[in-house]
């Protein structure tokens, strides 16, 4: 789960990472009130989960009340690369002397947390790597030993941080690592990490990604989830306990097992089609789960045809057939279905489908034939 800047900064504060004082606002009046409390100048920042807010006009400096109102009005409701701004973060303007970059990431390759530091703040990691690969200092931390003082010193010295900042920058890295571990984060990024004119270090932005699997340990963070910002099909699927990812094509896909569904998307694409979604009905799917999944798939108005690709293992093909028959009874889909059932109880499943004689349902016996057929039917 990706957090908004202000949510990330809440976690930072909790773990002692210095951040500028600020207030959350969802209306112009709230924003102005926040600005008045904080004292000018303030910065008014659009809260959307996307980079490039500044360039898009989503971050503005206000020197007085009038400017605060003007900017809050302009930013609230603004569209930033497809996302509408519903929330603001109003914070005390910082005195910027230098901008660094700091992060702790979950390094899957090394299977260890990796701490990163660069003096080239403001740019993203890939831009820094392109400009000067040596500018980003990285080191791995043994998760059982934890972040030691020497890790912070080494990053700071190797990144060429000024002598008076070695200690505070090292301390901030230690606090970021603490945030990373204590909050079950997959990513904690500060860009820019600010050095003020009075040589304080402050996290001016916060990008935090939390591990969904660990949210049960963090009930406060779980409430950060912004349901209204989610895609409607994805939200509907989540409520029904289905694993669904929205894509931009027109062929609805259902399969059992994440790998098989990904493979099905690929095979459909190879046949010239465009998948509308990823939907893993999971292992051991019962009829009602299948019915529920069909509703989610068809709630996407773009869908022109649907492919069921089932290789039964724990999932029984007869259960899948029953679910599909039930779905047709409830919904009467207006688009063609291609169904491939193989594996456990496949004969029984195919027999049930044949008997039901559903309108516009086509069975195929291989994955490739099924993909070709659905692409043809989607037109």
């Amino acid at each position, binding site marked *: 789960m990706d957090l908004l800047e202000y949510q990330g900064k809440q976690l930072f504060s909790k773990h002692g990472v210095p951040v500028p004082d600020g207030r959350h606002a969802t209306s112009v009046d709230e924003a102005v009130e926040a600005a008045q409390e904080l004292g000018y100048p303030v910065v008014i920042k659009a809260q959307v989960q996307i980079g490039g807010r500044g360039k898009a006009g989503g971050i503005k400096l206000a020197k007085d009340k009038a400017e605060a109102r003007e900017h809050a009005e302009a930013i609230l409701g603004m569209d930033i690369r497809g996302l509408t701004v519903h929330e603001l973060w109003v914070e005390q303007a910082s005195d910027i002397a230098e901008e660094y970059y700091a992060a702790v990431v*979950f390094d*899957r*390759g090394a*299977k*260890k*947390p990796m701490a990163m530091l660069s003096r080239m703040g403001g740019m993203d990691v*890939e831009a820094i790597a392109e400009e000067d690969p040596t500018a980003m200092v990285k080191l791995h931390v*043994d*998760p*059982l030993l934890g972040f030691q003082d020497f890790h912070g010193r080494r990053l700071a010295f190797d990144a060429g941080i000024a002598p008076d900042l070695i200690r505070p920058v090292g301390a901030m890295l230690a606090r970021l690592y603490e945030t990373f*571990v204590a909050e*079950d984060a*997959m990513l904690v990024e500060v860009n820019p990490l600010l050095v003020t004119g009075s040589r304080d270090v402050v996290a001016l932005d916060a990008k935090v990604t939390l*591990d*969904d*699997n*660990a949210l*049960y*340990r963090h009930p406060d963070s779980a409430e950060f989830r912004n349901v209204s910002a989610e895609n409607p099909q994805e939200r509907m699927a989540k409520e029904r306990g289905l*694993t669904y*990812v929205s*894509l931009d094509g027109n062929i609805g896909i259902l*399969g*059992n*097992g*994440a*790998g*098989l*569904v*990904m*493979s099905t*998307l*690929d*095979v*459909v*694409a*190879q046949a010239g089609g465009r*998948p509308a979604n*990823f939907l*893993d009905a999971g*292992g051991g799917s019962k009829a009602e789960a299948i019915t529920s999944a069909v509703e989610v798939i068809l709630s996407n108005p773009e869908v022109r045809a649907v492919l069921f690709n089932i*290789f*039964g*293992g*724990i*999932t029984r093909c007869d259960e899948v057939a029953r679910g599909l028959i039930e779905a047709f009874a409830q919904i009467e889909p207006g688009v063609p279905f291609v169904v491939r059932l*193989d*594996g*456990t109880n496949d004969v029984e499943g195919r027999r049930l489908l044949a008997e039901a004689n559903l309108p516009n349902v086509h069975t195929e016996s*291989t*994955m*490739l034939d099924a993909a070709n057929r659905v692409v043809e039917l989607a037109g």
Partner: protein
Amino acid sequence: MAVLVDRDTRLCVSGITGREGTFHSLNNRNYGTQVVSGVTPGKGGQDVEGIPVFDTFHRAVEETGANTAMIFVPPRFAADSILEAEDAGIELIVAITEGIPAHDELRVYNHLARNPSVRLVGPNCPGILSPGKANVGIIPASFFKEGNVGVVSRSGTLTYQIGNELAQSGFGNSSIVGIGGDPVPGSSFIDIIELFEADPETELIVLSGEIGGDAEERAADHIAEHVSKPVVAYIAGFTAPPGKTMGHAGAIVSGSAGTAQAKAEALEAKGVRVGRNPTQVAEIAIEVLGARV
């Protein structure tokens, strides 16, 4: 021969008294696996259709000589159960549980990495099947028979699909190893490929990968340097958009890292043939080993 599980496997199931735990334990026993015990704290002294249940792994190991553990407990208890199994001296831990927090996996991985006498397969994996010898996990055994193709895969159902294609072309399997779809798998492709390379029965290795991480790229380097047997690969997720988790916690393209394209190219650059779809994997197998039908 086979890898990891065979007739010497003595399995202890953590979470054996749960619905899924019971179902698959009995399923594994029916296949011929020696399921010697189970662990459920507070249910020590009971049994599951004759399989004795213990309160702790230590007791189960002492009393039943278990050498392999299967973890079937819910995600919030899974890391503790894996660590307990290791502490009790279990040599092979197969973790089926899906949804374990990534930081738990990190701690478990780095702790176990320091004990050379234990191996973890999974979590979030379907387990290991050595046809005709033992089945530890949830792989439906009926599609597979003994043979000379070793399969290692990050996914479950896709593996059955590939296995079925191979079976229809007449191939059987030495072992089928699901390493799981999580960000921190206990065993990597390389770990399992090393076992297949050393296994005299295995003549062809099939690697089934997917988006996310760089395990396939690392495997490609390893194969080029250390593997004499032919390897055929398949990668799922060419159409996956960046930043979206595709069902498996580990299946995510992050920025430009972890794409299927990059993985396929890395493998092909090292001389590994990559099938475009599961059917092609079987076709390449026929080319390499000759038709078996």
